[in-house]
């Protein structure tokens, strides 16, 4: 599948110029600065970037789960596929309540703490079924057992009555997936669903996600550090740097021909033999990720970039939303530089 962001089927989720800043008495932090993407039905979009670049904050904003200290602007639209479109950013609790867990579900980064320790896993799955599908207690329980089996938990009729502390990390993450897929959501946001787990467990979890997309046509936003996972399962990639999107395109395009020097750096670190450091972590790109307090009109990667010139520190490069594009004044591989348009809408 090669979905074209514009011109293809109507996107199920549209994030448009999203900004998120946190205000505290110690000053403000610009965690997300103008992220836009479109997610087609059944598409797997990978969001990659270094730790702290705003991946989790972006996805939390979609479901309105940010703390009250967060200040957001932009637009997040959800299309329910029946002709209705809902604006989610700044929506009231009732609107969000009807979307959360039913239309858009989320798997969180922390499998060990994301389940309630005093409730059985069955109860925690049943809850979402009773809320959105109006099942009674017995029906919800039966369906919970079914879902546990679906996500690959052995002896589901026994596990359903167990508490989270009786399950391993991988099992807990499967339970989280069971909760997330319980109501056949149109969109699943998976925030590093495998990072906290060991490699064999990772493969199993990815299989579950893949099946979900194939069998139910669920669109998935997959947040990950792991470019191997991206190559394995994703259709398109969005590369984030310090709260901004710096490159996007299909997996083939971006991996074969990265245009942003930052993307290139990320890929060099893992894909080229010989440059792969011990433990497979990203190669150090010289310099540090800036911690932004506002939204400067420059390329924030310039201090770490060997292609940077005075233009990069004077103007902010925009990211074209069509096809393969990079927010860079001096893109690699002969691509044309983007026009200096308004980056933050």
């Amino acid at each position: 599948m090669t979905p074209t962001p514009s011109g293809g089927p109507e996107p199920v989720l549209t994030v448009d110029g999203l900004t998120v800043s946190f205000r505290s008495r110690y000053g403000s932090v610009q965690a997300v600065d103008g992220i836009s993407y479109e997610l087609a039905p059944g598409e797997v979009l990978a969001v990659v970037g270094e730790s702290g670049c705003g991946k989790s904050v972006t996805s939390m904003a979609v479901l309105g789960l940010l703390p009250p200290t967060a200040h957001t602007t932009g637009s997040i639209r959800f299309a329910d596929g029946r002709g209705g479109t809902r604006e989610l950013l700044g929506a009231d609790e009732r609107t969000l309540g009807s979307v959360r867990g039913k239309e858009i579900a989320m798997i969180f980064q922390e499998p060990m703490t994301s389940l309630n320790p005093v409730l059985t896993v069955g109860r925690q799955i049943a809850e979402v079924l009773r809320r959105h599908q109006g099942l009674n207690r017995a029906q919800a329980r039966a369906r919970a057992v079914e879902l546990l089996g679906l996500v690959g938990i052995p002896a589901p009729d026994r596990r359903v009555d167990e508490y989270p502390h009786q399950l391993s990390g991988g099992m807990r993450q499967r339970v989280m997936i069971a909760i997330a897929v319980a109501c056949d959501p149109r969109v699943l946001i998976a925030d590093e669903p495998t990072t906290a787990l060991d490699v064999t467990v990772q493969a199993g979890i990815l299989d579950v996600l893949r099946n979900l997309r194939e069998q139910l046509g669920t669109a998935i936003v997959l947040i990950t550090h792991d470019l191997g996972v991206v190559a394995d399962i994703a259709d398109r990639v969005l590369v984030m740097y310090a709260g901004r999107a710096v490159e996007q395109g299909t997996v083939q395009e971006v991996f074969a021909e990265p245009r942003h020097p930052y993307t290139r750096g990320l890929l060099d670190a893992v894909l080229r033999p010989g440059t792969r450091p011990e433990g497979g972590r990203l190669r150090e790109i010289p310099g540090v990720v800036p911690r932004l307090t506002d939204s400067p009109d420059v390329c924030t990667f310039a201090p770490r970039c060997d292609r940077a010139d005075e233009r990069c520190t004077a103007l902010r490069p925009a990211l074209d939303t069509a096809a393969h594009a990079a927010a860079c004044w001096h893109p690699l591989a002969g691509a044309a530089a983007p026009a200096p348009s308004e980056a933050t809408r």
Partner: protein
Amino acid sequence: MIPYLLRRAGQSLVTLVLVSVVVFLGVRALPGDPALAMAGETPDPQLVAAIRHQYGFDQSLPVQYWKFVSSAVTGNFGISSRTGMSVTHSILSAAPVTVELALLSLLLATLIGIGAGVAAAVRRGRPTEWLANAVALLGLSVPSFWLGMVLVLAFAVAIPLFAASGFVPISADPLDNLHRMALPALVLGSGMAAVVMRQTRSSMLESLSADYVRTARAKGLARRQVVYGHALRNSLITVTTVLGLQLGQLISGAVVTEQIFVLPGFGKLTLDAVTNRDYATIQGVVLCTATAYILVNLLVDVLYSAIDPRIRIGGAA
């Protein structure tokens, strides 16, 4: 669970034996002689000797202790040297007063404390929180005798909603009983309510920012269900611990409260017994109170593990 309960029962037994020794020696270490106290203004030595003999005060301490303990296990605490009546009888008639007072205050403290604590946590930074905090601070710092007087002046004298003294058994007239017990229960429960409120508030603030609450919200659950079904369920674990720790204070606080409101409970019984060197009554009351205290703590432990599955069912599978 069963081995644990057996171990706890064993510990409790040891504690009770120690308590019995301490109270037995304690009352005898008090200055004053019960026989002299009973014999009147100008004691006749023969009468004093007769009284001593009648109550067994002339026997050796080990013999006296043995008599006390061996009859205590059958529920017989001997004869009061003050009233000449069975101590067991006076304990049984005082117990309903104190037990009701303690239960009512516990109920009030739990309802007010948890309710206000949840409200303060949910409405963080808004007037509700400040109000709840201010009231809690007041509840903690105001001594009960003073609070008792103020409440009596306000709600028994100025606005006569409640009675200020006396006791009517709940079996005789439930309404009149509550009418008289409301103020004492409020006085006794206020300190505990404040402690419970503060604990509930801080542990709710913690629960509400926990990852599993975020999960609950991500499921689209109603706010009420997120707050009570998820956050409070977890907070109750620490709140129960605090309730257990506070129960001791409830028992000692009851003595003062009963004095203020002239209630014929354990407090009055103890005070009368101590002023009259009534050994048998003091021993009986202390032993019964200690037993109640131990039982209640055991109950709290059981409750604790009922709320927290990590205690009830150990270990990862």
